[in-house]
């Protein structure tokens, strides 16, 4: 089992699926869907195997693979997972698999749709499983273009046109990535200047003691790039419009995992390689994070479109993640990672339910609905599960995340954390109000024709709902793992800092 390239298989299964789909005739809809489902299921199954098979007592990078790729840039095709990346890889596959089923009723140009979707899933996963900066960046940018094409081809035009939404999203993320690339190249060149060998290996770069002013500059570039991806205030404007314009599967993947690349990058590349820079810039991030929590929540209260509500609420919740990262201690970073996982499954479930409802009723306006629990009890369960998770009800995995973040962050930023906690109240306000209006109240005749979830439509509800509950009731399944990963990171960073001062 040790030499079996299981991570490569997980990574490439969707890509192989995409290639097979491209070769199929375009009217063979059934085969296309089955291949998409099988390839993502394979990835999901194998990533569960990795999740269980990861040796928690040993910690560190496991399931490592390494093939030299570009010699003079020091690039290796290097894969490996630790306690930080493993939950996020699992998250990607949970959502990827659900996203295929959430798009099961798609009838338009399905060949292109599923091929692009599978490429997108591969791209997102690649960023989490690689330990090489170059490969990380490669996957990071791969995802942008399929998203654009999917938004303009299968998106919906409501408050803004889908072309506008798609382009806005693309340009925001690409401008961010331009700065990330400047940062990465500077890092690479500086490391080569110090050590004399070209290397893109994250662990190797982390052992180098970069000058503080250099760290601040590069970390600032990265904070901008990853912050844009994580919809950090004030670079969040792409996010609600983008989600509203995007088709269901893209909203799920984008809000669910793609955003998390930002948080993951800040921790894995930012904190790990540039600890001194992180320390200086962290307070700025913390203040902006409060902007996220409070400002986005205020906007959210006045939204009418379900997708905008979830879109702004996800901006607001990313504020928690940011504050957790900015607090720079073991507990808060643990919390940030659990929160990313929790928010991922929650947002994906929410978007899957909204997508399903929209597909049948052709509206997402809160005021158009009422009493849907009468006609669609299963859909209502999904909505309630996602909604209650969103406001951090104990028993759901989100509660674990929020609680841990605030415990960790309070020791560093007392006032900011107190303001941040108020976000929970806002969330309860807008989520409960929206769900109450949509699901409960008297039965409305005009929605009697709506069919409840059945067959393949149930898959996202079961898979993502189970993840929310299992994570919430047995938090130690995730907690131990993440804690070991973050512990390793803090240990290394701490050592470097002492070395820097002495």
């Amino acid at each position: 089992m040790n030499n079996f390239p299981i991570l490569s298989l997980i990574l490439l299964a969707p890509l192989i699926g995409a290639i097979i789909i491209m070769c199929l005739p375009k009217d063979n809809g059934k085969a296309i869907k089955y291949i998409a489902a099988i390839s993502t299921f394979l990835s999901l199954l194998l990533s569960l195997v990795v999740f269980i098979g990861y040796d928690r007592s040993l910690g560190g990078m496991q399931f490592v693979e390494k093939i030299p790729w570009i010699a003079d840039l020091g690039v290796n095709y290097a894969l490996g997972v630790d306690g930080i990346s493993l939950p996020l890889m699992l998250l990607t596959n949970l959502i990827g698999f659900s996203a295929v089923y959430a798009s099961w009723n798609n009838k338009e140009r399905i060949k292109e749709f599923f091929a692009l979707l599978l490429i997108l899933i591969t791209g997102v996963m690649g960023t989490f499983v690689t330990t090489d900066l170059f490969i990380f960046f490669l996957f990071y940018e791969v995802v942008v273009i399929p998203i654009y094409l999917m938004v303009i081809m299968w998106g919906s035009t409501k408050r803004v046109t889908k072309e506008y939404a798609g382009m806005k999203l693309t340009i925001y993320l690409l401008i961010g990535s331009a700065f990330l690339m400047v940062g990465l190249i500077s890092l690479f060149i500086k490391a080569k200047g110090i050590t004399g060998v070209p290397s893109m290996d994250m662990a190797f770069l982390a052992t180098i003691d970069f000058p503080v002013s250099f760290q601040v500059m590069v970390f600032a570039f990265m904070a901008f790039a990853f912050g844009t991806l994580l919809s950090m205030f004030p670079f969040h404007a792409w996010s609600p419009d983008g989600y509203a314009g995007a088709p269901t599967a893209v909203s799920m993947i984008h809000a669910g995992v793609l955003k998390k690349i930002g948080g993951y990058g800040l921790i894995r590349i930012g904190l790990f390689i540039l600890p001194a820079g992180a320390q200086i810039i962290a307070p700025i991030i913390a203040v902006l994070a409060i902007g996220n929590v409070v400002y986005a929540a205020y906007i959210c209260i006045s939204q009418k479109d379900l997708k905008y509500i979830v879109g702004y609420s996800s901006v607001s919740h990313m504020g928690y993640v940011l504050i957790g990262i900015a607090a720079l201690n073991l507990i808060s970073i643990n919390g940030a990672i659990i929160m990313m996982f929790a928010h991922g499954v929650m947002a994906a479930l929410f978007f899957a339910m909204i997508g399903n409802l929209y597909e049948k009723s052709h509206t997402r306006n809160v005021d158009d609905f009422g009493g849907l629990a009468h006609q669609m009890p299963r859909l209502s369960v999904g909505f309630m599960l996602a909604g209650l998770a969103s406001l951090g009800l104990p028993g759901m995995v989100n509660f674990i995340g929020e609680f841990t973040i605030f415990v960790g962050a309070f020791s560093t930023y007392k006032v900011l954390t107190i303001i941040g906690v108020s976000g929970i109240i806002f969330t309860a306000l807008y989520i409960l109000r929206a769900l109450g209006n949509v699901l409960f109240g008297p039965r409305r005749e005009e929605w009697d024709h709506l069919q409840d979830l059945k067959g393949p439509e149930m898959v996202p509800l079961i898979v993502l709902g189970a993840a929310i509950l299992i994570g919430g009731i047995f938090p130690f399944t995730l907690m131990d793992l993440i804690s070991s990963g973050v512990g390793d990171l803090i240990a290394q960073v701490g050592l470097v800092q002492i070395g820097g001062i002495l």
Partner: protein
Amino acid sequence: MDFSLLTTEILVALIGLLVLVVGLVLPDRGKQLVGKLSLLALAIVLVYALIAFPREASYFNGIYQVDVFGNYFKILFLIAGILVMLSASKYIKRFAAKSSEFYGLMILATLGMMVLSASGDFITMYIGLELMTISFYILTAYLQSDKRSSEAGLKYLILGAISSAVLLFGMSLVYAMTGTTIISEIAGAWTMQPAMAAGLVMIIAGFAFKISVIPFHMWAPDIYQGAPIPVTTYLAVGSKAAAFAALVRVFMLAFPPGSISFNWNIILAVLAVLTMVIGNLIALTQKNVKRLLAYSSIAQAGYILVGLVAANTYGLKGVLFYAMLYVFSNTGAFAVATAVEVDAGSTDIDAFNGLAKRSPMLAAIMTVCMLSLAGIPPMAGFVGKFYLFSGAIQAGYLWVAIIGLVMSMVSVYYYLGVAKAMYIGVSIDENPIKLDVPAQMALWACLAGTLLIGIYPGPLSNFVQTAISMFL
């Protein structure tokens, strides 16, 4: 002297002349055969050039150099020439009776590029340049019934002649100050005086015209739009690469950075930034794909120039690496445009509407090639830009790298504009575009090249490393 090392050039010259003569003698049906045979012959020369890559020699006291650097570019020109001629197979019918001369002139232009990239002194360089440019003057005006084409030919002739004059004047000033035209001898023979600076600036201006660097770019959009598409393609990929080869050779050998008080790097840096910014910004507003690609290739010249600004290992590698992937990506994009023009008679962006439904492969190739030009992974352009901007940052030009990377992300906007037309535009004509076999081969080769270089850049990177070893 072992003249067998010149086999590549001799063969190309022979093929070019033979095609011209045979085209005159043979009746109409034979002319089509001429095209195919000359392609086959070029393919054989390409194989030979690949085998002969590591061989080096110097001729006539160094005025002609066969070295790995030149050999690399010869291979590049042959690949570009073959791809362009393949993609033009259907378009050529527009040239009616003159199609065999088209092949002849294309091959002679290739020969000019080869001489340009391998010349060891200014005079030979000038001869190569003129052989290439004069062939292009004719080719640009090749659609005689099309006014735009004739206009483009005339414009190119006048402006090209002026730029040649500027270049020649610069060269003569350098000769006056150093007493030699041999590039490798200039390095030791010169002192910094006003006339020398003037000569250098004029050489930069002369070459900047050929690579259409802003503010010497005015000719490019009109000529790219007016010329027959295959000629435009070759002008964009071949002539530009040749001028870069000469530029790198002159500046790295005659005026090596650091050894002189004249900082040409900063001049080129300013030109490169101007080119990247203005080229991309103007391209944003274009409604015609041919013109859009013209502005985009102006911007691309800016990126490549960044590598020479850096003048270190990564930068020069970037120049050579990018020039090669640019052949595949740009030819791919132009080949799709050629197919659309043959089908719809226009390259306006509306002509691309609904292409993804009519011919999904064409739309996919166009998207992949354009994204490669924009520098999006896993396409080749990304690795190329990585090298170029790594070089720039290593040499201390962080600001150039930031501007370049941001502008290349801005360029995604107009490339995606074409993708948008192809994927969600609606067209009246629902039939797939019919392609003949050579054009299909060219398209597949461009797609394969763009993706393979992007996903596994190792081999090309090693190849390039060998080719630049003589400078560092």
